[in-house]
């Protein structure tokens, strides 16, 4: 176990996996994002990034701050427009936001005027699902995130960890093809974060969603991911990809395994190069 299959470190165009193409749940090809900086300069946030995520794969992107990993997620979600390149979800190219790409944000984005139950059923309701069907889905997710007794609470009455649990349930209740997660546990304290990682692993193993997860926390990336994509900064590029063949179901104890530590060292080295290049 724990074979490190590292794609060649191609600094140019991102790595395209051989089995990619039509079978990918999410396919990003040659996506660039350029925006106008100050004094007429152009800032290249993302430079020809290509990435394929297989169905039911848990893919994690790590990178230094400012490497454009969150920008990439916003582009895939259709919340921002790429300067060039193509993106497709299950073979259908995407240009604007849609319920096929659910997203969990770093900040708290629950609708404060809706109760926990109403937040979770927002997506299904938008899609015209009947009240009976919706309530079944909501009840199931409430049980999964352990907040059944908080169904009628407003978000303001919940702790940060609880809010992110509801946000995950809200995104999943819509049954998206791909779940995008933008540092969803970044604002939480370390204990709550560990709880949330466990919860996410459990939910993911149950539902087997295609997940693209962005984080700057290497432990988190290794604990959750089937694959870790390391990005470099300015311009944002894919620097390396590591397959994480650690056995599942995983637990926090994994962090003490030699394979885990070896992988962590690899990623730290890759990121350290980044930081050294900056100075």
């Amino acid at each position: 176990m724990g074979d490190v299959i590292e794609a060649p470190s191609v600094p140019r165009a991102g790595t395209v996996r051989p089995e990619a193409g039509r079978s990918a749940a999410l396919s990003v090809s040659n996506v660039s994002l350029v925006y106008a900086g100050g004094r007429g300069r152009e800032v290249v946030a993302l430079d020809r990034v290509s990435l394929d995520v297989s169905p039911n794969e848990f893919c994690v992107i790590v990178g230094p701050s400012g490497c454009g990993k969150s920008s990439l997620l916003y582009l895939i979600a259709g919340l921002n427009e790429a300067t060039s390149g193509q993106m497709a979800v299950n073979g259908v190219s995407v240009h604007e936001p849609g319920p096929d790409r659910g997203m969990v944000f770093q900040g708290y984005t629950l609708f404060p005027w809706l109760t926990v139950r109403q937040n979770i059923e927002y997506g299904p309701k938008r899609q015209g699902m009947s009240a009976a069907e919706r309530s079944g889905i909501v009840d199931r997710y409430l049980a999964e995130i352990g907040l059944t007794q908080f169904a009628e609470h407003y978000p303001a009455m919940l702790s940060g960890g609880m809010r992110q649990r509801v946000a995950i349930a809200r995104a999943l209740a819509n049954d998206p093809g791909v779940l995008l997660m933008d540092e969803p546990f970044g604002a939480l304290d370390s204990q709550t974060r560990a709880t949330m990682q466990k919860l996410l692993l459990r939910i993911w193993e149950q539902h087997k969603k295609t997940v693209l997860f962005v984080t700057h926390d290497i432990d988190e990336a290794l604990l959750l991911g089937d694959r870790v994509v390391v990005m470099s900064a300015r311009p944002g590029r894919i620097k390396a990809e590591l397959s994480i063949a650690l056995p599942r179901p995983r637990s926090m104890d994994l962090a003490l395994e030699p394979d885990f530590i070896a992988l962590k060292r690899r990623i730290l080295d890759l990121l350290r190069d980044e930081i050294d290049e900056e100075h």
Partner: protein
Amino acid sequence: MAQDLAMEAPGSRSRAEASPAGQAPARRRSRTWTPFAAPSSSQNFVLASAVWALIAGCWAALSYGGVVSSMFLPTPTAVFERAVAMIGDGSLLTHALSSVQVVMIGFALSSLVAVPVGLWMGTYAPVRAAIEPVVNFIRYLPVTSFVPLFILWIGIGLQQRVTVIVFGVFFQQLVMVADSARGIARDLVNAAYTLGTKRSEVVWHIVFPATLPAILDMLRVTAGWAWTYLVVAELVAASSGLGYISLRAMRGFQVDTIFLAVLTIGFLGLVTDLFFRLLRRKLAPWAM
């Protein structure tokens, strides 16, 4: 790791605030002057009553004591007698209702247009670009300077007073709603998109509810301004209303009637304020 699911129960905060076990709560500091401490309702009542009593006491001392001539400052007794007389013959109610009617019409008209237009203005850049310069120009014009023009155009009927209120309140409301709408968290809208909300639905599904507490606060504040503009309009040209009886009383040196009219306006303002506070609690219970 086993206990961590229970780690973030909402009760954990209050537990941390409690005094450590075994330690006597001997030196409990007074919460009275702790910044932002939760108020106690009995203490609030005592403090508010004390200020009212102080004002009434000053008034009584100045008037009964003859410090200020009764021609300028009526005694509480005189105002009370005037109140009994005017409530008795129904004239206070008639004039108060006349004022309330004008305020309600003007305020409702203004709010019904200002809220949706303000939301569009805050949400859509072209709407803002189109009307913001005009709105900001008009907003700084003193309403009172338009009263003669309105009288010329509309006359001195109810429409004139309603126009003054609308003119005084509408543009302020518009800017306040637009600013609140523009200030909502962008990721709230982004989250809505990823859940299948269409662009055309964002204003009413997301921006409106997200802005609702601010809108209700805005209505509470501007309702007070509506009263101000009403009195301005009534002082200039009207044949009924609390401002009108004040003006008529001034001509007859009936200072007690002026006091009664002012107290009535203040009382109605207090009621309006309470109404909007209750309305907010009812319509936006999530943002208390």
